[in-house]
């Protein structure tokens, strides 16, 4: 029964080369045990230098993998990140926001991961470190399916990179109660406007497909739209990227319908004068 708490990335990578399991905030790992004993060897990634915090990085932003949702909430970020901040606020509860990490949310690869839609809408790429060095993968290519990611054995998601862009973000989560709720559906939008018209809209939806998806068709259709035109454009769009299912939280039909209302509201929220 060992928990390693390396300070250096190289040490963590060396430790993970064996049978050890990576541990971040523990908010997915421990519930996932379902009362069974924890894995005998774990590596705590939260103390590694450089894995925590948010900073400017060249022409964009770098969110350390072990950054907690509370840190995201408290960070001084431009309106571009309003959706990500909104998502941070909707992650479980204060307790979970204080412990849970951004990288953990992505690596856990739940179809209802709160962080995915907002980060997809920000065109995030993830930085993956291994003994062989680091590589960058677009977030859309990183999560393959429920509980499936491109993370190779022994690899660590060290950071999320977000390119600078104009625009404002928004996030909406739909659930059957106020706090501590798994989404029925959620929508993140990042919209840049000029003179009241959409220059570029980026819209992603979670909990309506095995992996949260960007709505490319809609984004194209929204270019040039005014706020008044958003609703009609959304109605006319097919959302072919989505494949919602029936589960204990809602029916597939409901999700298909509700997500349209959420998209209209999220896009509209980004266009409201502040």
């Amino acid at each position, binding site marked *: *029964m*060992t*928990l390693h*708490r390396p300070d250096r990335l190289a040490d963590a990578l060396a430790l993970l080369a064996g049978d050890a399991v990576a*541990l971040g*905030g*523990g*908010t997915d*790992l*421990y*519930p996932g*045990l*379902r*009362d069974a*004993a*924890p*894995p*005998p*060897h*774990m590596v*705590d990634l*939260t103390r590694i230098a450089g894995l925590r915090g948010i900073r400017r990085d060249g022409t964009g932003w770098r969110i350390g993998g072990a950054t907690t949702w*509370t840190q995201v909430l408290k960070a001084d970020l431009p309106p571009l990140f309003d959706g990500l901040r909104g998502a941070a606020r909707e992650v*479980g*509860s*204060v*307790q*979970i926001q*204080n*412990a849970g990490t951004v990288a953990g949310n992505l690596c856990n690869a739940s179809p209802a991961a709160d962080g995915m839609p907002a980060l997809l809408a920000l065109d995030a790429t993830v930085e993956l470190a291994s003994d062989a060095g680091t590589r960058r993968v677009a977030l859309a290519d990183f999560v393959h399916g429920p509980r499936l990611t491109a993370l190779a054995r022994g690899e660590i998601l060290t950071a999320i990179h977000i390119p600078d862009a104009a625009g404002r973000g928004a996030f909406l989560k*739909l659930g*059957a*109660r*106020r*706090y*501590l*709720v*798994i989404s*029925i559906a959620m929508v993140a939008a990042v919209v840049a406007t000029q003179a009241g018209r959409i220059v570029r809209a980026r819209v992603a939806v979670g909990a309506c497909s095995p992996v949260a998806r960007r709505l490319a068709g809609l984004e194209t259709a929204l270019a040039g739209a005014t706020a008044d035109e958003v609703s009609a454009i959304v109605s006319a769009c097919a959302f072919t990227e989505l494949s919602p299912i029936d589960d*204990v*939280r*809602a*029916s597939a*039909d*409901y999700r298909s*319908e*509700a997500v349209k*209302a*959420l998209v209209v509201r999220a896009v509209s929220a980004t266009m409201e004068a502040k």
Partner: protein
Amino acid sequence: MSLDAPQGHVGFTLNGDAVTVPASRTARLSEVLRKSAGARDVKVGCNAGDCGACTVLIDGAPVCACMVAAGQAQGAVIETQAGLVGRDPHADRLAQSFQRHQAAQCGICTPGMMVAAVALLRSDTPLTEATVKDALGGVLCRCTGYRKIIAAVLDASRSAPLGEGGVGAPIARLDGWPKVSGTERFGDDVAPDGALVVRAIRSPFHRAAFRFGDLDAYRADHGLDLILTAADVPGRNRFGVIPGFEDQPMLAEHETRFRGEPVAAVVGRAGIVAALPEFPVTWQELPSVITPRDAVDADLLHDDRSDNVMCRGYVARGDAASAMARAPHVVSGDFSTGFIEHGYIEPEAASARRVGDRLEIHCCTQAPFMNRDGIAGLMGLPADQVRIVPTAVGGGFGSKLDLTAQPFVALAAWLTGKPVRMTFTRTESLQASTKRHPSEVHMQVGADEDGRIQAVRFDGVFNTGAYASWGPTVANRVPIHASGPYRTPNYSAHSTAVHTNTAAAGAFRGFGVPQSAVALEQLYDMLADKLGIDRLEFRLRNCLLNGEPTVTGQVFDRGMAIDACLGALKPAWDAALADCAAFNAAHDGVKRGVGVASGWYGCGNTSMSNPSTIRAGITAGGALMLHQGAVDIGQGSNTVITQIFAQALGVPVSAVTLIGADTDLTPDAGKTSASRQTFITGNAAKRCGETLRAQILRLGNVGGDAVISLDGGLTLIDGATSVRVPLAGDGYAIEAVASYDPPTTPLDENGQGVPYAVFGTAAQMCVAEVDLALGTTRLIRIVAAHDVGKAINPLLVEGQVEGGVAQGIGLALMEEFLPGRTENLHDYLIPTIGDVPPIDTLIVESGDMHGPYGAKGLGEHCLIPTAPAVLNAIAHATGARIHHLPATPDKVRRAIRALI
């Protein structure tokens, strides 16, 4: 890593003290804090971050200790409730405020709530209802309805305590301080260190045959102390709660009848049991049924119950069929509700030790004497060889009446001679504890041209699960109550309880009455709308009044006060209708509606004796001891019974020392269920106090108005005279025992008779806002008018109402247990602090004929009107009526779509 503790240990600062404790570094911090560091104020409710009971501060930030690796806390500063109170001024004031507002009921969520609140109070966040909710949103409470918790946090800067007082005074809970200071001890908190651990082996299928491998080899190979199977049960391997319906085996014999049913149990040291490999059992899944519809033609679950019908209930008055045929206005409908989980935050827990030829069991229970007798039957022991010592109960709404962990620890302790403990995991609790009966109701209501009810017909099928539990009670109770508290001259009500391969449905706050109210009160709205009569006026027109017969022919001369409850809502109702109209005129996408519903509930057992006994004595030293066996599960019986007793005796509440509950020390005060404790045990306490007072006054030879003073001795002051009464003896110098059993009569073949001595009534209204596009419902306000006869402690009345309303909201909007699918608290949703709107409680005091000082029971009543009031508000807002609960966003949206 210089801060590292020695191998196999973890070091941190706990509540100001540097400690190093033996611990696996990968273990959950919650477990290490509880078991190694002695911080038993850290509660474990789910082990998944869903309930927040284990919230602690790590370096000042609230986190769920169940999801922190112990090694991650190495070198950290950890603070828990018990350490904060007494060390942190915010926590001290908060504890006072929790007491002042009665923000702790059972107290199991209180550590999590208070720790999260301290973090908020320390920050410079402005205190508003919204910031309090955000800060406390990660902690679930099943008792309080959250409103008093919000009030307590907002009011945490003051420090004045509540005053003293007898009957009618809103005094603080007498057992409250341990709950708000982190010293309360619940089911899992009292097991002796080193006790062996029991873990049940449970069926993974709704129904299965099973065969064991080599159990002796498994036991020996893994160093277990014991493996229990049905063959080890020394007495009769059947238990139950209703005479004649003891049908549940402690361990299944040939096949299992529900998913989660135990077939064996392993007993051993904690570390061994935690690391066991797969148990040697092979399962063969068998065809199963989980709905009554399918059960009729299925294999019998119990050979002597044809068609899988466990029992039926029937009440008839007048001629419902012909009156219905003659009625000019008739509405009818089908309604259904699902399994509802109790969702108390404390899972079932018990520990036991063998003391000579006796068994001593500590457990969280609502029914110590029934537990004692049930264990005696399973063990083949006389009842006096079993002692049940109830711990604090971390929430109980019916399911903790039944045996759960107790038989396992009893049998294991008996056979091994060692102390043994067992605590259910949340999954086990969800799988194996009893639930609210799912219902399928067809109902018809007919009225005349003036909107006066002429006839009601009710046919309800209840899924009673694999075993009887309290199913017969539900089947009997529902036909008596399905008319609601309304004048119903022609009535026919049938109920059928059907077995299926699911966890037993049993007692749950309201015993089936909330399910029938969902049907009746929605039909009342439909009928009022059809007739064009205001819905509150329609109910007022049909109120059952004193002097009029109930559907069982019972006539109350006094105490039937539904007219007063509905009348009390009138100002709020009129205002809400106007507000909603104004709001709706200004909004397109969201609409508001107001709903109203009534409820009634007979206190105590149905046409069956259910006495309570209270004992009190004064020692030679002048100490006044009250043997109070009415288990306080958070509802407040420790306080209420003491207030009644002290009033009757004529002493301040502070003069009374409480003993119990404990089957060795307290007489049987019956079970804490059926809203019976204030009424029945309260009457016993009143009689006991009066008897003791009469004895004392006789001894002093003073007049009836003499004042009793207990000041190290016993002094009576009668006007200008002061008499010292000598006290002597080892036991009690003066003692009194008194009992009370409510007067009822059996029901005849048509269900006519006097089933209960007392009915309580209630009416609630709800304002709801519905998002038309999403089908989401946001509750704006609840107003609850309750006739409690006499409020012994008005603050406790409010607490019961708010908690019942919150459970009613869950029933209406989000809760449904699906065996095998919602076996945790993130798939099974109960209301959070953000889901319960402000609740105004209007206390009506009609003065009951039988109740102590006129008081009635209240516990069940609070929940009954809530769900139909919410559903009626949704219908008023949108036109969409939800027949099949819960009214989740997808169902509400579907119903709205269907209107277009």
